[in-house]
């Protein structure tokens, strides 16, 4: 098939898109600064959590855009390209992830957050466990792993863009970095949420358009499937060999992701339980649409554009090949949008931890409004410098940090979060034990122990064994203080 990359249209689309993002960032700034704020705590609430005002549509899109990143739109379809339909199957276990996140955190998390004045993800852990070790361990986890995770996303996006469009890598990288850093820091949580809404709507429309384009491919689906069958019959089915792949989705894309900081903070930022429930319901529909679409397309592309050297190019190539010029230009921005919408939330999470969890908690608890604002500016500059530096001069061990970032944080946070929220017996020793054990266990399992676990993805044994450690360590140690129980279960 003739592959004519509409470079001019893509450049125009990128420019328009960037301008819109900056404007939305400015809008976030204006709305935030209009809110009357009397002290540092009030300002933190507005800047880092948007004042707990999210309504259902914006709540839904920000949760979905934040949780699902380039992995869903580029990486996993790339796996489908290589491995066939088993990947859409396993990735489908993420359809209800946002739904599950909303309900597992639930109204309880939001009620407690409002009552106890939480702004940061770690505030829950601080108040539930009242342990310096738990708090600092969590903070370090966030500061190290999430910061490490951010820069490579930009790098991957810029590389992808260059591979597909020929546009120069350094310039694209700098452009993406500048746009996201500018709108995120200027507008805070609201900027992130407004841009998520914009990007989410864009992707929803795009998904429909791309389906239309695919259905219009000459030969249609039967041609595609015949080609796949001929290429390799294993592509169109699940075999005993690919069974571990078929089920890893439950524990890699489904269950654990619900406790990640950048997603979870949204669960204390909404206006009412009705908004939460609506957002949860609609998210299931939207994610089913997105996820199924992109994964299936990845599998199809193996027949439409065989012989791609880099599987990650599957979706962008499909878009460039099957959509007319202008539409392709706009849609190629979509994976970049997915990446940005995850990374901007991560930037805020890192900043929240640095400012609130570290500075205010341990350095200057009585900090004034002006001081907190100034510290936030300094912190955002430092984070920006680190991210830009890491993007252009990645340290050699970076890929390990990234590889273990999300799985490692899952291993650290999932049980202490769910256990702390619902189990009265949960205490700080259980949290400490499972956190300190979970992270190294995940890494060691991934590198050395998988053969002992039937070659399952490390996330699977980690989930169960860390759970056992959490429960056992809790039961072997004293009950938590009554004051905590009263705080978390009382009126």
């Amino acid at each position, binding site marked *: 098939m003739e592959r004519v990359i509409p470079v001019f249209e893509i450049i125009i689309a990128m420019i328009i898109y960037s301008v819109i993002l900056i404007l939305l960032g400015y809008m976030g700034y204006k709305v935030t600064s209009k809110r009357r704020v009397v002290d540092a705590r009030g300002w933190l609430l507005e800047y880092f959590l948007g004042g707990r005002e999210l309504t259902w549509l914006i709540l839904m899109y920000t949760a979905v855009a934040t949780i699902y990143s380039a992995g869903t739109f580029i990486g996993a379809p790339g796996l489908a390209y290589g491995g066939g339909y088993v990947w859409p199957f396993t990735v489908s276990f993420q359809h209800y992830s946002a*739904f599950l996140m909303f309900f*597992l955190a639930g109204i309880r998390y939001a009620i407690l957050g409002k009552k106890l004045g939480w702004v940061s993800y770690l505030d829950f852990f601080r108040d539930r466990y009242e342990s310096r070790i738990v708090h600092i361990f969590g903070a370090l986890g966030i500061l190290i792993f999430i910061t490490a995770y951010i820069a490579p996303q930009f790098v991957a996006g810029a590389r992808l863009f260059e591979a597909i469009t020929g546009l120069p890598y350094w310039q694209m990288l700098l452009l993406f970095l500048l746009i996201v850093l500018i709108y995120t820091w200027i507008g805070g949580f609201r900027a992130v949420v407004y841009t998520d809404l914009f990007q989410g709507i864009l992707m929803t429309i795009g998904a429909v358009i791309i389906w239309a384009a695919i259905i219009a491919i000459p030969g249609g689906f039967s041609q595609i499937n015949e080609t796949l069958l001929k290429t390799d*019959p294993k592509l169109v089915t699940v075999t005993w060999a690919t069974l571990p792949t078929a089920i890893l989705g439950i524990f890699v894309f489904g269950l654990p992701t619900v406790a990640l900081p950048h997603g979870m903070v949204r669960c204390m930022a909404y206006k009412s339980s009705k908004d939460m429930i609506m957002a949860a*319901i609609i998210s299931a529909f939207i994610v089913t649409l997105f996820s199924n679409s992109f994964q299936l397309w990845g599998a199809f592309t193996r027949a439409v554009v065989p012989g791609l050297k880099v599987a990650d190019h599957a979706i962008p190539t499909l878009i460039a090949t099957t959509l007319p010029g202008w539409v392709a230009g706009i849609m190629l921005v979509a994976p970049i949008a997915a990446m940005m919408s995850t990374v901007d939330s991560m930037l805020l999470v890192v900043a929240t931890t640095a400012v609130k969890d570290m500075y205010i908690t341990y350095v200057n608890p009585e900090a004034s409004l002006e001081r907190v604002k100034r510290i936030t500016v300094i912190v955002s500059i430092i984070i920006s410098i680190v991210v830009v530096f890491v993007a252009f001069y990645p340290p050699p061990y970076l890929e390990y940090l990234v590889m273990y970032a999300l799985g490692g944080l899952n291993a650290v946070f999932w049980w202490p979060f769910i256990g702390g929220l619902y189990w009265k017996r949960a205490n700080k020793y259980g949290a400490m034990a499972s956190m300190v054990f979970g992270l190294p266990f995940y890494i060691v399992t991934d590198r050395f122990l998988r053969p002992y676990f039937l070659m399952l993805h490390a996330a699977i044994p980690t989930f169960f064994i860390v759970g056992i450690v959490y429960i056992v360590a809790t039961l072997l140690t004293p009950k938590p203080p009554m004051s905590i129980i009263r705080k978390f279960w009382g009126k």
Partner: protein
Amino acid sequence: MNEEAFEEDERYKEATKQAKIAFMFWGFWVLVTLIIGLSMTLTRPLGQVNFILGFPDWVFYSLIVWQIVSLFIMLIVIKMFFKEVPI
């Protein structure tokens, strides 16, 4: 040890109930997806695949039909069992 009873916030009962139901629904959905997908693939010899509307049949029934059906089950469950709770 200070074991005085205290009044629990009743809103938490509804919240916890919702969490339980959501989790059970999720588990049920995962199970059915697995059953549909795996029973129609692992039991068949390689190369024997039927296609429905352009998708392998197991993909069609698990990722499309069951997904859509589960979405409606979700709607019904929420409509019937979930209440609004003031935050």
